[in-house]
């Protein structure tokens, strides 16, 4: 039998149901993979070793007595900005280094109710935006090259899933924090529609844009997890009451007849040529499967970075204003953002909130012609931790200048966005593509992404670290 840590959540559940493996074996395999983490990716802040094994025993019994849930016995990780009952939740910062929540976040309750088992709390850029290399728990490292960042802010989630420590880890995304580490680590990730997954118990970065969702190696696993995470929760005023779609059912639908837009402006204007080629190749694959590829334009896309940044800064400034006198306790990255937040005017913040409608109108026009939009996952590759510079052609950019270039629009509009790996670039580092759809149409993201993974092997590529 394969090393159970190599398998997807879906494959594990199949083995459990067939009696060919047990949750105890799978959880043990993942914990074993994580044991060398501190010397490699540094993706784990807190291991849940004993409670995970206890839960795995219970899950194993449930398969025997026929009461197993849909994710019964599946090991998963959780970004350390998401509350876990009885397990410290640091926010990636020593400021909350001793905080042990009394309750699980709503989405954790749901996954555990479905049978999922938390095996580790995964590192994050502090408070979902802090320092990529000088955080309080040390730099998290990309398993494809330990000198490079996995990206963030769900850095540990991306690194751990790529390193085969877990099949799935839950992250959060306010400007690209699921999709960026997914792309740079060669795994898949979905930022759901704003309000689709309750964020009660998730440390907020910017309440107007915050979402939470899974990272995994396959789109199939993303669909299985989102299926149990989505839906209204009374404790979250931003969570939607709209019915939850059939995400796992959507996987079987293919892309024949779908209209897929490819933006002709902004997204490819600053983009590594290999990544731009991957977008073109993906479009050809979808066309060969019966999709119609349609060139589109999103006229105000150039405004998205500024709108996103000013909203995030204004809202994080409000959320953390009670700690302004503790500025020195934040890591240098986050404290810099917190200081900057104090100089965003109320007028500019309100203007940015009001201008969201302009960006949404562009997407509404686009979605009157197409069902999905295909974009680069990111314009560049994971930068080195010692300088955080991203190369695009013969130019270098500081990562914050371009990292959210292809991701911010989904947060500003609120639409769902899926990232899937699309191979390796000229430097043998992962690259990805992104798939956007109308609000609450995660099914279309999954249809397109799953089709892509049925026809390519990019999602099966493992970093040297995981193979070793």
């Amino acid at each position, binding site marked *: 039998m394969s090393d159970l840590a190599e398998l997807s959540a879906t494959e594990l559940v199949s083995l459990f149901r067939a009696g060919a493996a047990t949750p105890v074996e799978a959880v043990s395999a993942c914990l074993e993979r994580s044991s060398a983490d501190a010397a490699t990716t540094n993706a784990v802040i807190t291991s849940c070793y004993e409670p995970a094994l206890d839960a795995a025993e219970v899950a194993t019994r449930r398969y025997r007595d026929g009461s197993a849930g849909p994710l019964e016995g599946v090991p998963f990780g959780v970004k350390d900005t998401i509350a876990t009952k009885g397990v410290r939740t640091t926010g990636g910062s020593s400021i909350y280094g001793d905080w042990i929540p009394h309750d699980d976040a709503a989405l954790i309750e749901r996954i555990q109710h479905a049978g999922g088992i938390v095996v580790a709390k995964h590192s994050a850029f502090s408070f979902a935006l802090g320092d990529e290399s000088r955080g309080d728990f040390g730099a998290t490292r990309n398993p494809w090259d330990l000198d490079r960042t996995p990206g963030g802010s769900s850095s540990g989630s991306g690194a751990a899933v790529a390193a085969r420590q877990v099949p799935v880890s839950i992250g959060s995304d306010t400007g690209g924090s699921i999709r960026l580490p997914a792309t740079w680590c060669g795994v898949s990730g979905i930022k759901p529609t704003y309000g689709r997954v309750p964020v009660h118990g998730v440390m907020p970065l910017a309440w107007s844009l915050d979402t939470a969702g899974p990272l995994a190696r396959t789109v199939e696993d993303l669909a299985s997890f989102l299926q149990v995470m989505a839906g209204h929760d009374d404790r979250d005023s931003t969570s939607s009451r709209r019915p939850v779609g059939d995400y796992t059912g959507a996987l079987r639908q293919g892309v024949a007849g779908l209209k897929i837009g490819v933006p002709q402006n902004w997204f490819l204007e600053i983009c590594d040529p290999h990544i731009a080629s991957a977008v073109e190749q993906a479009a050809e694959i979808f066309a060969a499967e019966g999709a119609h590829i349609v060139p589109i334009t999103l006229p105000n896309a*150039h*405004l998205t970075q500024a709108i996103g940044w000013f909203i995030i800064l204004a809202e994080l400034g409000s959320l953390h204003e009670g700690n302004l006198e503790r500025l020195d306790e934040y890591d240098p990255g986050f404290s810099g953002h917190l200081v*900057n937040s104090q*100089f965003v005017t109320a007028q500019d913040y309100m203007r940015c909130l009001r201008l*969201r*409608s*302009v960006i949404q109108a562009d997407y509404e026009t686009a979605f009157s012609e197409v069902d999905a939009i295909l974009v680069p996952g990111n314009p560049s590759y994971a930068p080195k931790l010692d300088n955080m510079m991203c190369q695009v052609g013969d130019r270098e950019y500081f990562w914050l200048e371009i990292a959210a270039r292809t991701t911010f629009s989904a947060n500003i509009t609120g639409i769902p966005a899926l990232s899937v790996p699309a191979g390796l670039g000229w430097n043998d580092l992962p690259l990805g593509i992104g798939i956007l759809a109308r*609000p609450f149409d995660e099914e279309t993201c999954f249809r397109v992404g799953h089709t892509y993974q049925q026809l390519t092997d990019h999602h099966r590529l493992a970093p040297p670290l995981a193979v070793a």
Partner: protein
Amino acid sequence: MEQDDLRRRCQVGEPIGLDEAAVLAISASRGMSLSPEHVAGVVSFNDALRDDLARLRAMPLPYTGAVPLPSDALTWIENGGRRSSCADEATAITRGLPDE
């Protein structure tokens, strides 16, 4: 003369750069004591986003008729990506398009 220039830039919505003195004055008025690194960071951040901010401030936001509000964004999401007719009008004005 400087005062006139400042007034003109405010009237046309041109961003006014924050120099070190301005950052120190504003932070002091709020009782914040910033390190030289933080001051330099604010100046650098504002310089980097100055052009973007100018573009944002140049976008018209009407005061009469259908006024775009922050809540419109949430309504659009909840409507599955469709505007109300009221928001249609506001967005058309904001984008400088003829009324629909």
